[in-house]
């Protein structure tokens, strides 16, 4: 896989979709492409968050520690991003992510510091990300409203 395909993958992620392709290419070039064997952990709950991962191939399981041990709460697949919260604000990892499925998990690792440096350099990137986050809040608010409505009904 070449940097072109990775740039395409980045473009499909809503958070980055509106960004200038040249910047995305730089982001892809700076990022590390990593491959994990099934079962291998990408990061663990409670770790310091230092990077976000974009799944290029394979599947990842998102697990949280409960009293009954780790419980899978979600699965992410191709062209999805995991750990993005950690590169935007300083919180420990809220979940553990492992390579799942039968094939190795291939993802692009974006270091927090590199990402921040890029945003610093190109403020338009920050603006796009702000818009995307705002859209998410709108979406979450709507979901919350619906949930409250369902509860009171």
């Amino acid at each position, binding site marked *: 896989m070449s940097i072109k395909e990775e740039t395409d993958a980045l473009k499909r992620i809503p958070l980055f979709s509106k960004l200038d392709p040249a910047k995305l290419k*730089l982001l892809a070039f700076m990022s*590390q492409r990593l491959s994990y064997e099934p079962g291998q952990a990408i990061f663990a709950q409670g770790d310091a968050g230092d990077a976000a991962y974009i799944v290029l191939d394979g599947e990842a399981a998102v697990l949280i520690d409960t009293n009954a041990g780790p419980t899978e709460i979600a699965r992410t697949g191709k062209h999805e991003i995991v750990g993005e919260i950690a590169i935007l604000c300083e919180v420990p990892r809220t979940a553990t992510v492992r390579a799942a499925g039968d094939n190795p998990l291939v993802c692009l690792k974006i270091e927090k510091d590199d990402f921040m440096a890029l945003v610093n350099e190109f403020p338009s990137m920050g603006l796009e990300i702000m818009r995307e986050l705002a859209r998410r809040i709108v979406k979450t608010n709507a979901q919350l409203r619906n949930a409250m409505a369902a509860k009171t009904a």
Partner: protein
Amino acid sequence: MGGSGDIDRNIFRFVIRFSVKETALVCLLVAAAQAFYYVTLDLPKNIMNQGIQGHGIKFPKEILGWFSVDQIGYLLWLCLLFFLAVLVNGAVKQYINSLKGKLGERLLRRLRYSLVERILRFPIPHFRKVSSGELIPMVTSEVEQIGGFMGDAFVQPLMQAGMLLTIALFLFMQNPVMGFAAISLFPFQAYIVPMLQKRVKALGKERVRAVRKVSERIGETVGGIHEVRTNGTASWERADYTERFGTIFRIRFDIYQRKSLVKFINNFLSQCAPLLFYSIGGYLVIQGQLSLGALVAALSAHKDMTAPWKELLDYYQQAQDAQQKYEQVVEQFRPEQMLPEALHELPADPAPGLAGDIALAGLSVAEDAQTKLLESVSLTIPHGAKVALVGAAGGGREALAMTLARLYLPSSGTLRVGEQDLTRLPDAHLGASMGYVGPGAYHFSTSVRDNLAYGLRQRPVSASEKHNAARTRWLAEAARAGNLPLDIEDNWIDYSRAGVANAEQFDGIAARVLERVDLAEDVFLFGLRGRVDPRAKPAVAEAILAARAAFRERLAGPQADAALKGLIESFDPTRYNDNATLAENLLFGTPIDPAFEVDVLAEQPDFLAVLQKQGMADELIAMGRQVAETMVELFAGLPAGHEFFDRFSFIAADDLPTFQAIVARTAPDESGKLPAISDEDRARLIGLPLKLVNARHRLGLITPDFKGRVLQTRAAIHDAFGKGPAAGKIAFFDPESYNAAAAIQDNILFGRVAYGQAKAQAIVGKAMREVLDTLGLRERVFEVGLDFQVGVGGSRLTPAQRQKLALARALVKRPEILVLNDALAVLDSSTQVKTLDGALSAAGSATVVAALADAALAAKFDRVVVLADGRVAQDGRYGELIEQDGPLKELLAH
């Protein structure tokens, strides 16, 4: 030994003190030379009058009573005599010159040595007042100028004055009036020149001071570069230099002008003298009171006279200059309270040791007249005790530790260990039995091993096998110049102090001590990254090859380790390695000749020739253009100096526009043909793809077809550089042989750790260690790690490694007293505890006194002494003191 007591403030006293015999010899020679010189002056007159004109001589003339000659023969005889006189006079002069050269060089050597010897004895507080920026030019360049003069100091005036007197004598012998005429202008010159010179002397002093200040400022600029950059004060600094250079300019030009005035007056007066000869001499000849021959001889004698006279005046200027420079240098080397010279004398072996109680009575230490660091401290530390010194910084804990290590000398009171007065113990004895680690430990620019053994080098223990007669003469010459006549080539390391017999066993003890101070792992890693010369250590290279084979088993054998699958791409002569650079794939080896390093490889003509022949050059140029275009696209928007350039770009920020231009002017035409490309552009473009690592950079440029062509070229390169005149420039990857140009770990891996495999480095590192442990190779690698060069001041080590290595250096000599002065403060707290525990157990029965910045660590010691305001504030067992309301409790509360 080699010392010279106090150093003379007057250069002439310094010279005469160390060259009485030589100077006396030169005086005699000068006197002898004058006789021959007189002959060379007198003979021309005889040749003129008797030889040519035949005045007062009857021919045939009898010579020396046994043969007779006619006039021509007589003329030739006189010429022969003249020739002999010139020859002897010249030979004597040459001998004197060589003598004075030797004298001067010896004196310079002595002076330099005494200066360095004095630096070694400077009181420690003095080092805060002087900078190395000041000291270095004094010992190196400033004395150099004085050195030339020292040989001349007595010889030059003697020789020139001798010649002058001889000439004057000759002139007076010819005719007293002529003699008087010749010297008539000298008194005037002798009066006016020193007058003009006086001001030059004062200016010279100013100049030295100004230049010294500049060198100090340069030292500050270098040392404070972070502050200058982060405060944006480059302009302020530059303005400061502007001012200083302006001052130097003014002084120098002033000196130049005055010196040239002196020169002008001298020349003018010298040129006026012949006027006197022509008028007075001519008058006398016309009057018949003087022969023409005498006048010609007098003229030529006077012409000879201007040279020594000029030399004498020059000498006078030089003497003034040298004395002043000498004084200014020597003044800097006479601080108060230098370590007594006697302490540097090499005492008899064995050292008496320091296995006694340390007793301080009324001990005070003053940094200078105003500041007291310690005030009447009285303490007894029994032998073997472990004592912590705590207290606020500046309260005396550091000063006490430094005084115990005799870095500070007490201003009053006594400091004894057992029966011995510590302040009088010779340095060599103290150093052999005391270990000291300060807060910013220094390391010498050599290997880890040599730094560890530094504390065992008090004296030569046995003569080197290479010692021979030439070496003995070499040292005898050193002694003549007052230098210490000990042979640096001898074996200086006293292994018995470390409890081992020889160098081989020392590595074992080094490993144990480094383990204790938590540095063994680091040194092991140095070893993995280190290189081994298979010719010097064939057994080690052989063992590493065995490790390579064992490692390959784990990768691919029947019992292959599943965890390692896909983590390493081995070097395979028949395959392209995606995790290595294109350059590595082409060379398929490690460069030995620096011209084959990846950064400059594209400029290497032989390499380019092979590429050309294989038809790859154009392809690489096209690839270079693509890489350059991509880099321009990716990085063009970033400001120059952005960290991304360093970390990610193939092209430095400053070069982006250059490459943009190169890409533009090398664009192929419609038919896809490349235009003519200059050699420089070609090298720059080819240089870019050479750094590509396919797996890492993922630019999609390295296609399977391209890989095939690389493999063909690889074979061609192997043919071109594998044998013949070009052999030995590249160490080729060969599965069966050791690669001397590559690190040990690269030799074991024989491949590259794959990019993009999570945690690959850690897993591979662990597997490699297991292989080394299984084969019992850990020690071998460790030994290579001991060869690691630490850099100037230990710059290639981290601060924590520097402190740990210093601690190991103090422990390895098994001291009887170990003094730690905030030695571990730079370590993080858990490592600090671990290292301190290791050090305390390694110290064994030695007395340990540790000044601690962190009072909580005092819990590990038998006894705690709290110091405040230079006095003992509290003294007792840790457990008891923390129960009491007192200084220790307060310290711990913070």
